[in-house]
C-alpha cells in the first residue's frame, strides 16, 4: 500500500469525508468536510466516490510527500500551490506537494485517487476535533495510507464550480423566525476570530433577545441561533446536537460550502429565500456534480 508522509501539516489539516451520520441522538454531530462541494468535486475528478476521505487544509496548507506515483486533485481555495486547482494531476514517486497561505477562502482539499485509507470510526473517517472521534489533526511525520477505493477512471476535464462565493448567504426561516423582526437581514456581520468547526461566531449589530420561552430542542447544521448577547452564531459541521437558543434562520444546503470558505474578518449578509428556491439551488449543484 502506498502512503503520504506529512512533511508539514500547515495551520490545521484533518482527514474528512462527508461526515458521520446516525449519531446525533447520542450528541455526536456529523463533522465532515467544511466545504462539501470542493470535497465532492475533487473526489469525482480523481475517480473516487464523492464521499471518499481526503485532506482538509485550513487557512495555511501543508507539505505532503508521496511515496509512489499518485493521482490527486486540489480543490477549494487557492493555497499558493504551483499545481492547477479543480483538475486531476499526476504526482511522481517521491514528489512533495507544497501548499501555503490561502489567497482566497478558508479551505483547500487534497483528494487522492483511492481515498485516504485511515480506519473509520463510527462509520466515517471524518475527524471530529472537539470530541476526538475519528482521530486528531495531522502532525509532522504522520504517515497516511492511500486506499484502493477508486470507482472509475480519473476525469480528463477540469471542473471549476460555477456557483459564486460572493453575495449574501441564503437562508430559510428557522423554527423561531416569528419571534424576530427581520433584524438579521438589516446589517452586515463579521466572522469572529473565535469561530471554529463548531460554530461561526458573528459580530455586528446586536439582535434583541426575543421574549419567548425555549425548551431545549434539536439543532441542525447551518442553524443561525441568537444567544442572549444578541450576536448570532451559525452552527457549523461540529455543531452541538441540541440547544436552547432561538433560531431565526437556517443557511440553505446549497450554501454550506460557502460557510466552509469564510475566514475570520470576512463580512456576510443574509438573504431570506423560499424553501422551493433552496431546493432548486441544491438540485443545480447536484446536476453540476453529476456532470463531472
Amino acid at each position: 500500500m502506498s502512503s503520504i508522509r506529512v512533511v508539514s501539516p500547515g495551520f490545521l489539516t484533518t482527514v474528512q469525508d462527508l461526515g458521520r451520520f446516525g449519531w446525533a441522538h447520542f450528541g455526536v454531530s456529523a463533522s465532515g468536510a467544511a466545504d462539501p462541494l470542493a470535497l465532492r468535486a475533487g473526489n469525482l475528478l480523481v475517480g473516487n466516490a464523492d464521499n471518499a476521505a481526503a485532506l482538509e487544509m485550513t487557512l495555511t496548507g501543508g507539505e505532503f510527500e508521496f511515496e509512489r506515483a499518485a493521482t490527486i486533485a486540489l480543490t477549494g481555495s487557492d493555497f499558493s500551490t504551483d499545481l492547477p486547482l479543480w483538475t486531476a494531476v499526476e504526482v511522481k514517486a517521491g514528489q512533495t506537494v507544497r501548499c501555503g497561505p490561502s489567497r482566497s477562502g478558508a479551505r483547500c482539499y487534497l483528494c487522492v485517487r483511492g481515498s485516504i485509507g485511515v480506519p473509520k470510526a463510527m462509520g466515517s473517517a471524518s475527524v471530529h476535533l472537539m470530541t476526538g472521534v475519528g482521530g486528531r489533526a495531522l502532525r509532522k511525520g504522520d504517515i497516511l495510507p492511500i486506499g484502493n477505493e477508486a470507482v472509475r477512471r480519473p476525469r480528463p476535464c477540469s471542473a471549476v464550480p460555477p456557483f459564486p462565493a460572493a453575495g449574501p448567504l441564503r437562508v430559510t426561516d428557522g423554527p423561531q423566525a416569528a419571534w424576530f423582526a427581520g433584524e438579521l437581514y438589516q446589517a452586515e456581520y463579521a466572522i469572529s476570530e473565535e469561530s471554529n468547526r463548531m460554530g461561526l461566531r458573528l459580530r455586528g449589530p446586536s439582535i434583541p433577545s426575543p421574549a419567548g420561552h425555549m425548551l431545549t430542542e434539536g439543532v441542525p447544521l447551518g442553524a443561525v441561533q441568537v444567544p442572549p448577547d444578541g450576536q448570532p452564531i451559525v452552527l457549523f459541521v461540529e455543531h452541538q446536537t441540541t440547544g436552547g437558543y432561538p433560531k431565526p434562520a437556517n443557511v440553505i444546503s446549497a450554501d454550506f460550502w460557502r460557510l466552509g470558505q469564510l475566514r475570520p474578518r470576512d463580512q456576510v449578509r443574509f438573504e431570506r429565500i423560499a424553501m422551493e428556491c433552496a431546493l432548486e439551488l441544491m438540485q443545480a449543484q447536484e446536476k453540476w456534480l453529476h456532470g463531472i
Partner: protein
Amino acid sequence: MESYGAVMRLTRALEGARGILNLHPAYASVLVDFDPRLRTHEQMEALVRECLGMPETAPAEEARTIEIPVRYGGEFGPDLEDIARHTGFTAERVVELFGAAEYLVYFVGFSTCFPYLGGLPPELATPRLSAPRKHVPEGSVAIGGAQAGVYPLASPGGWRLLGRTPLRLFDPQGSPPPLLRMGDHVRFVAEPLAGWQKERRA
C-alpha cells in the same frame, strides 16, 4: 410526560428509515435531518404523521437501570455547599435526596452524549451559574435548574456541580454505543473515595 412518550415512539419508529441522516430527540420535539434527494418534504411529513398515528406498542427492549457511582462534594462537587444553601438543606440531606430519586434519560445531546435527566426532586432545583465555568471536568454530576445531568467530557458548562463519577459515559477511542441511551433509568450511588482515583487513571 405525554409529549415525551410521543418523542420516544417517533424516534424509534423513524430509526433506520430511508433518507434519514440524523434524529435529534428532545423534550417535546424530534428534529429529523433528512436527505431531500431521497425523500421530499411532503413525503417526510407524511411518514412522520404516520409514525405519530401508530398505536403505542411495547418497547423492543426492557428499559435498563444504570447505576452511576458518585463521589460528592469537595473538589468533585464544588457547588454542593451552594446547592445546600439555596435549597435550605444540609449537604448530607442534598446527597441523600439526590441519591434516593430515580432518573429518566429524556434524551442525549448537547455536546457528545450529555444525558438530560428528568426526575430531580423539585426541592433540589437550583438555578445555573450566572457565568458558565470555562472548564467542567469529565464525569461531573450536575444540577441545572430542575434538570440533572452528567458531563461526559471536559467542557465549558453552567450547571451546578455536586459530585463526579469515574464511569466513562463516552470514549472517543472506544467502540460505541455510549453508556446512556434515551429511555434508560439512572440511579446515583454514593461512593467512598478509596480506590476511586486509581480507577479513574486506569
